[in-house]
């Protein structure tokens, strides 16, 4: 059976496609070294247009108007620029109501695309541009430690990692977020209160890595400007021991959070990355595999959610679960040496 894979790796090589959702301008070049917040490409995702009724403004019939339009399609304009006229004894003119670009002109009308801040696509990780996708973005390669999450609020940032979690079942409280943590990335356990996120934003933190979070906080977390990456899921869940060990041993290292939203069709998932130099060849991790004995697996839902174990045997046929459902299953030896039988659908390979 095909097995999903989540990566928690102390050293790996990764390549990430950073692409605009629509065509835009690519601002980097091949071979360029990037920081996580460098802009790879930009575009106008939500353009705003203004349609000027020039004929009305000049008091003319449509057929008479176009000869008085003074600016060309494609021209950039500033607010207040004269676009058409003057006409008649009153020297009527039509001025640009905003800065922008003329998209269309004719039949007595001018369509302006208002100048706005473009959407900027950040690199999301430190690394080197290994190839360009014209008009869309670039492929960035990097080496270092990687831990993948399951939910992100769509933001990106980097900073020094500070570990607030002492054991895998940690719960984050407001009083843990003191001023010393300002401008750092915090790794903590479960977050169940809006006030915690509020405080994180006010300090401000540069990012938050949580084992889990109450799902009721999703709207609030999405509005934060700092990235929030959740490693396990929603509700009170411990962090898996691999991610826990990786991150607590990286305390005070520079870390990048790309809290992009999970989109499996677009091969996107939130992740935290610690850039590390390498002196030897490191390969990219594989993303898909088949379940087989000896694999390190993570349990992705109750019971034993977030626990790590070793796949001992794949059970032939279907096994009956405690609730009566029949499913393809495996015997797993958890880290505490207890052996349990779980459906393969509730496991993923961790490597």
């Amino acid at each position, binding site marked *: *059976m*095909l097995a999903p*894979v989540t990566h928690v790796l102390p050293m790996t090589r990764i390549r990430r496609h950073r692409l605009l*959702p*629509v*065509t835009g301008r690519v601002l980097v070049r091949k071979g360029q070294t990037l920081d996580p917040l460098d802009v790879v490409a930009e575009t106008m*995702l*939500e*353009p*705003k*247009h*203004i*349609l000027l009724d020039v004929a009305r403004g000049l008091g003319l019939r449509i057929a008479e108007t176009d000869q008085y339009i003074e600016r060309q399609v494609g021209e950039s304009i500033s607010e207040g620029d004269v676009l058409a006229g003057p006409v008649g004894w009153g020297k009527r003119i039509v001025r640009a109501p905003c800065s922008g670009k003329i*998209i*269309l002109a004719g039949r007595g009308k001018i*369509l302006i695309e208002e100048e706005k801040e473009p959407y900027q696509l950040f690199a999301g990780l430190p690394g080197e541009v290994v190839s360009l996708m014209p*008009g869309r973005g670039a492929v960035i390669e990097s080496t270092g430690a990687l831990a993948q999450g*399951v*939910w992100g609020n769509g933001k990106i940032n980097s900073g020094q990692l500070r570990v607030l979690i002492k054991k895998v079942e940690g719960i984050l409280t407001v009083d843990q977020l003191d001023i010393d943590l300002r401008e750092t990335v915090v790794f903590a356990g479960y977050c169940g209160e809006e006030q915690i996120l509020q405080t994180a934003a006010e300090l401000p933190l540069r990012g938050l890595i949580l084992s889990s979070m*109450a*799902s*009721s906080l*999703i709207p609030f977390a999405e509005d934060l400007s700092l990235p929030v990456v959740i490693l396990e*899921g*929603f*509700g009170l869940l411990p962090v898996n021991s691999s991610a826990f060990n990786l991150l607590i041993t990286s305390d005070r290292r520079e870390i990048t959070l790309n809290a992009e939203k*999970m989109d*499996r*069709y*677009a*091969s*996107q*998932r939130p992740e935290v990355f610690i850039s590390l130099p390498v002196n030897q060849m490191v390969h990219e991790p*594989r*993303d*898909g595999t088949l379940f087989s004995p000896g694999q390190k697996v993570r349990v*992705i*839902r*109750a*019971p034993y959610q977030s626990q790590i174990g070793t796949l001992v045997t794949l059970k032939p046929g279907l096994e009956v*679960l*405690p*609730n*009566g*459902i*029949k*499913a393809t299953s495996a015997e797993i030896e958890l880290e505490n040496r207890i052996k349990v039988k*779980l*459906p393969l*659908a*509730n496991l993923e390979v961790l490597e």
Partner: protein
Amino acid sequence: MEQSNQTGNSLLAVDVGEVHTRAVLFDVVEGRYRFLAIGTAKTTAQAPYNHIGEGINRAILRLEEITGRELVGGDDRLILPSNLDGSGIDMFVGSISAGPPLRVIAVGLLDDISLASAKRLVSTTYAQVVETLGLNDRKKPEERLDTILSLRPDLIVIAGGTENGATNSVIRLVESVGLACSLMPAEQRPEVLFSGNQMLKSEVESRLGTLTKSNFAPNVRPGLEVEQIAPAQVMIAEILRSIRASRMPGVGELNEWSGMQLIPTATAFGRIIQFLSKVYDPTKGVLGIDVGASATTVAAAYDGEVSLAVFPEYGLGYGVTGLLKDSSIDDFLRWIPMEVGEDYIRDYIFNKQIYPSSLPVSKEDLAIEQALARQAIRKAISAAQAGFPKGIRRSGRGMLPWFEPIVATGSVLTQAPSPGNSLLSLLDAVQPTSITTMVLDQSNLAAPLGAAAAINPTLSVQVLESSAFLSLATVITPISNTRPGTPILRLRVTYASGDETSFDIKQGTLEALPIPMGEAARLRLQPLHKSDVGMGGPGRGGSVRVVGGVLGVVIDARGRPVLLPRDLTRRQDLYKKWLWTLGG
């Protein structure tokens, strides 16, 4: 496993779902088409494979293991036609529901006329209306333009203008669409489906045809009082296929394997329900419910005419959080006979969105999973009723119309621990009225059979006549306003053996008659206290021949709608009792 008699009749159907890909083999056994076996694998439309081919190959490989029959040759191609040694197949059909729902902007004139029909058209496939643009939306032309540019739809459906009706206002809307398309890079322009006033076809073609792929279908609203969705429904299904083929690797190949006849799973499902409606009582419709990961689909067919409604927002996969948008947590809690907190349910739903193929292991989690399914079905049926024909028979306002039979499919139902568990979920969710048969498509064959019906209707007929679908029970629903505990129906049962028994059914109860599977019995129904059993009105009864399902005949006298006690202990007691009644 029985093998083909090699008369060249075998058919392989592949259905690519959001979570699972199924390969289903049908062949002739002893002169009739039969369902032979099914191979299932994970769908690989998403990362890391991003190509549905891997999942299809594995599903077929699994099928080969089960049947011992070679289906794919050494060149990795299907062996087609079959060989004398029994390898290969003779026909192939495909259906697909995997993929994010199409993002659609519906454009029309009036909200409750052409826009309503356009939205109904969109709801016949895996698509979601992300915005509507109409005459009364108070948007300036440039705002319409920005709406289209910002939302980046996959498809724009334009309706409006009855036949020989409005033209200028429709053209103004078409101009907005054209302008937006002209400002987009060619490869990112949405396809357009024009299904409005047919007089405008050539003008729309001249304005949009050079800008983007423009599709045309007959008017969905030819008259103010006339809605005509079916012809455009065929076109929107084709558009879905073409968009999937262009964006989802592997779909193009599957379409080629299918002789360019790959269809949306929902369309295939609707086709089989439509077919059943020609076979069953024409005075009642046939209802089909497919509660899947990608969407919940409701198909209601009357005498060969099907009304299809697909609700990606009520799918139990990646879109499961859509259920939270118009349901309260209480809507789920009411179906759960255990102590479960509101936060736990909300967290559960969001975790399910992350891991839609994961399985509940504990009884509590199973109850939540089934509560989600109940709510998804209830919401979907409620929304789908807007598209049901007018004047159909029902027991009362707000109640489900009469159907015979009701066919249900979807893993959450077919993988339930027992038939009784499936039936109770269905009764709670569908809340049928009158007398009906609840049928479970236990091997998820409806869509493959619907796809097969296009090239081999005999196969679909003969497989449907076999025992591929499981009759759960004949369900009789007496409806009454009396207090719980009041007798509302007197029943006299005459078994095939000639034995007779009589008893009263009380309001608020769920009872089962142990009539063996496939065995007929005659029931004399005498409504009490003017209860309505769907035999001509309140208080009217009569004699009816019924056939036992796997759970016999069930009398659901719990009332409509089913109101469950808020008190957890009482709810637990009731569920325990009902499940016990239905065999556990």
